């Protein structure tokens, strides 16, 4: 067995152990889950150090026949992009488990099931990013929905069942469109190659006629745009984020939704280069709409005097951020690509921080309404400052990690599409608004009634948020290690696209 398989299997084994624990052993279940996820994270980081940064193509490759009748292989491998996304997931999982120690207690089912589902999800995430066989990717892509569905529906708040179903149906619908495209690719590969295959490398060598390419591209793209979520495919996200527990939201927005943008790079671009170029400008327009739409709705939540919801606000900011990511992907320059990939990682950490701290604020104040908070800085300074830093990272303050990626995306985009880049830059101003308004209302100013007796972060909470804040600050000053891993993969994707005049203006 290869390292990726072991990495993926560990959490699954852990979750099986959790399900076998007797009823009522909640504390033990939490400890086991935390232990397993820390071991997996360390194993993943150890693996990353043996990753050859100079090489292109997939590493840690393994391949076994799975269903030879259809040419389906169990094939795994990672390049720089997928490696970092896997690491993001592996690092965030123990943080989420520690941060959400008590989160599952109000759920419909037992606490151990909550953590068991999170570990299953971790397995699926490793699988979905590591799969180099499209069929295998699809299997993980769909199977991943089931734990999330139960996490939202079983442990969320408010209209959790409806939100879970909405999430599931949107994703299934997209997945089925993708399935049709996958079947199409498979049939074409059977016609052009000696045997039909699902291998990404082999499929990217196919020559597909333009019309078919466009149709197949759309099947993949819509599935990923729903996941990402790009306007106008985003409508499931605010509901899901509002209903899910903060921990689930971190995994959902921070990691899972990256499957969408990752899929665009890995599949849309490398399998359908012509169609990608054709649809590029349209998608850039959609990205710009997403940037502003998400920002405006977030501002609306922040400024609303009545029931502006803090979870909804964060989810709208994510729509805006995903707009930047897709903008970078479809601008087709090396800088914009590296920036988009880096953005995925940074967004993962800054959203994680926002959701976790928002979750603690909510559980203390017993309210999700922004207007119920006020002056937290005096009462709970550590919580307030953590939220502030996370927020600053979200609006891409220089010195924090998101700045680098947003800058790269915009500079890279400017090289090819100056006007969209300028419009996108205006989006940053709104980003400042949607973060600063809630920060001002909730953290600064006099402490409003109901907030006087809130307690500051506990040791457990401090321990869980500290690494996230550290990562945000560290990679803000020194993003080079990440870029070293990303750049070869980004230029490999672009050279497959055969785009001329990549850098240095028009």
């Amino acid at each position, binding site marked *: 067995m290869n390292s990726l398989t072991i990495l993926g299997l560990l959490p699954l084994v852990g979750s099986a152990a959790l399900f076998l624990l007797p009823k009522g052993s909640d504390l033990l279940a939490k400890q086991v889950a935390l232990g397993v996820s820390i071991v997996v994270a360390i194993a993943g980081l150890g693996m990353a150090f043996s990753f050859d940064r100079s090489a292109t193509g997939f590493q840690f490759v393994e391949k076994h026949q*799975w*269903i*030879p*009748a*259809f040419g389906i292989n169990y094939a795994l491998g990672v390049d720089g992009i997928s490696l970092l996304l896997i690491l993001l997931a592996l690092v965030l999982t123990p943080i989420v488990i520690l941060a959400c120690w008590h989160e599952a207690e109000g759920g*419909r089912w037992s606490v151990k099931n909550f953590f068991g589902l999170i570990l299953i999800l971790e397995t699926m995430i490793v699988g979905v990013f590591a799969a180099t066989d499209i069929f295998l990717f*699809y*299997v993980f892509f*769909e*199977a991943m929905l*089931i734990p999330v569905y*139960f996490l939202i*529906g*079983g442990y969320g708040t408010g209209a*959790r*069942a409806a939100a*879970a*179903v909405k999430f*599931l*149906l949107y994703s*299934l*619908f997209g997945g*089925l*469109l993708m*399935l*049709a495209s996958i*079947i*199409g690719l*498979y*049939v074409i590969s*059977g016609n052009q190659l000696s045997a039909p295959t699902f291998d990404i490398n082999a499929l990217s060598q196919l020559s597909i006629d333009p019309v078919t390419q466009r149709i197949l591209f759309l099947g993949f793209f819509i599935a990923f745009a729903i996941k990402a979520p790009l306007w106008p495919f985003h409508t499931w996200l605010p509901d899901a984020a509002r209903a899910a527990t903060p921990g689930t939201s971190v995994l959902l927005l921070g990691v899972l939704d990256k499957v969408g943008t990752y899929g665009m790079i890995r599949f849309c671009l490398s399998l359908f280069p012509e169609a990608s170029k054709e649809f590029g400008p349209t998608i850039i327009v959609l990205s710009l709409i997403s940037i502003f739409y998400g920002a405006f709705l977030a501002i609306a939540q922040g400024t609303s005097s009545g029931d502006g919801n803090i979870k909804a606000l964060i989810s709208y900011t994510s729509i805006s951020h995903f707009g930047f990511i897709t903008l970078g992907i479809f601008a087709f320059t090396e800088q914009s690509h590296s920036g988009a990939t880096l953005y995925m990682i940074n967004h993962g950490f800054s959203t994680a921080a926002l959701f976790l701290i928002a979750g603690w604020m909510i559980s203390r104040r017993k309210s999700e309404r922004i207007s119920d908070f006020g002056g937290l800085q005096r009462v709970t300074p550590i919580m307030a400052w953590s939220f502030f830093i996370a927020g600053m990272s979200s609006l891409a303050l220089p010195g924090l990690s998101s700045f680098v990626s947003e800058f790269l995306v915009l500079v890279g985009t400017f090289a090819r599409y100056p006007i969209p880049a300028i419009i996108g830059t205006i989006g940053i101003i709104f980003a400042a608004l949607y973060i600063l308004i809630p920060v001002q209302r909730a953290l600064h100013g006099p402490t409003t009634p109901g907030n006087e007796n809130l307690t500051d972060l506990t040791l457990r909470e401090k321990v869980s948020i500290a690494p996230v804040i550290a990562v945000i600050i560290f990679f803000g000053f020194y993003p080079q290690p990440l870029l070293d891993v990303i750049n070869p993969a980004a230029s490999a994707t672009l050279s497959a696209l055969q785009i001329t005049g990549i850098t240095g203006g028009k």
Partner: protein
Amino acid sequence: MNAPNIEYGMLGPILIVLAAALIGVLIEAFVSSRYRYILQTGTAFAAIALAFLQLVLIRNTSSKAAVSSMSIDGVAIVLQGSVLIFGFLGLLLIAERGFQSFTAQAAAIPGSNEEQKALVSGLQQTEVFPLTLFAISGAMLFPAANDLLTLFVSLEVLSLPLYLMAGLSQRRRLLSQEAALKYFLLGAFSSAFFLFGSAFIYGQAGSTTFDGIRKSIVESGGSDQFLLVGLALLTVGLLFKVSAAPFHAWTPDVYQGSPTPVTAFMAAVTKVAAFGAAIRIYYFAVGGLVWSWRPILIAISIATMAIGTVIAIAQKDVKRVLAYSAIAHSGFLLTGIIALSKDGLNATLIYLFTYGFTTIGTFAIVTLVRDSGGEVSDLNRWVGLGKRSPLVAGTFTLFLLGLAGIPLTSGFVGKFAIFTAAYKSGNISVVVAGVLASAIAAFFYIRIIVMMYFSDPVEDGTSVVIPSAMTAATIAICAVATLVMGIYPQPVISAINSLAFFAG
């Protein structure tokens, strides 16, 4: 004139089941009621085991039998094997301890004193066993028939027992009898269409054997109007059996009214038999007319998927939901026939094999959810089942995900195979329709899962009975099959691929 040569070995599996059915009739007539149940079940299970054994022995046969009226080839053997397996599972459900699903005396008027007396005195009749065996033998004959007349006879041998069995329900007997009557009347109509079509085809082709029809199409170029009229009428008869739109109307009523074990049996076995016969007709007998029948089947397939999935959303009874789901699955299965290729043949057989397990498992679970009066199929009373009996709800979820075709369940393998075959043959429209229909279908399967898990249970006396060994075994087998064929389908696929050939 010499007596025709009958290949007893090749027909062995069918003959064994038929003989056991006849013995069952004698047992019902002559054995005291105390021993009937044990003898009937013993005979039935022994017959199925023997027939399966014989089938395994002749598995490499590929030739015509009984003066070319039958074709015992790989396709027939796969289908007969499927029928025997699903028949066995269905019988396990039917033989469930206490016989709670079946009326004691089918001939008694519902609510009459006689019925009461029969119930109280425990005068349970067990004629359902020979009836099931007759249906199984018909279902085995149907996909192996190589002659329109044999096909018709086997259709009747399959259908007549089912009409009766649909009316045997102990609870809600009027509904059950109504279902039986509806099934019978509509079935009789479709048989008439079928026979009428056969006559037209015979008139043109001069032969009732599939080989003869095939030859005459080649010779005439297939442009004869009477042939097309005959094929159209024959198609109506077949589509009725597979419950394709617009001939699906009987399905929900019959599925709902029949005793649930019978529904399970019928849903799996009839589908295998009818699609088996259809595939032999369209692939082998009238394959030369593909340009005539393909557009029609495409339209019907799309309509069937649409009707099955959309109407299922509005259903409030779990058996009706499953009935519409069965209709939708017929639409998916038709895409395999439309493909008209070796891939399509393989895919259809794989789909039927995986679907049978999942659907029997689903209905087996329905038999477990009861209140004091019997089964509860009203979906509103399934609310909160996940909390009350997590294991049953979990298994039911697995089956529903299988029916929805979620990856890692057998349903996905079948769906993938069949859509790939259709796409490969250039019929992309049905693939797109199939994918969209799958998305709609996912909605109502998930709705049931939501009801079971995300709502709190209501105390209304609904409970899950502890299944006896027989039902438990059925559910376990079906669940394992659904999961294993989803995760590692290769052995089944390669076995079917290597067997599935028609005898030329």
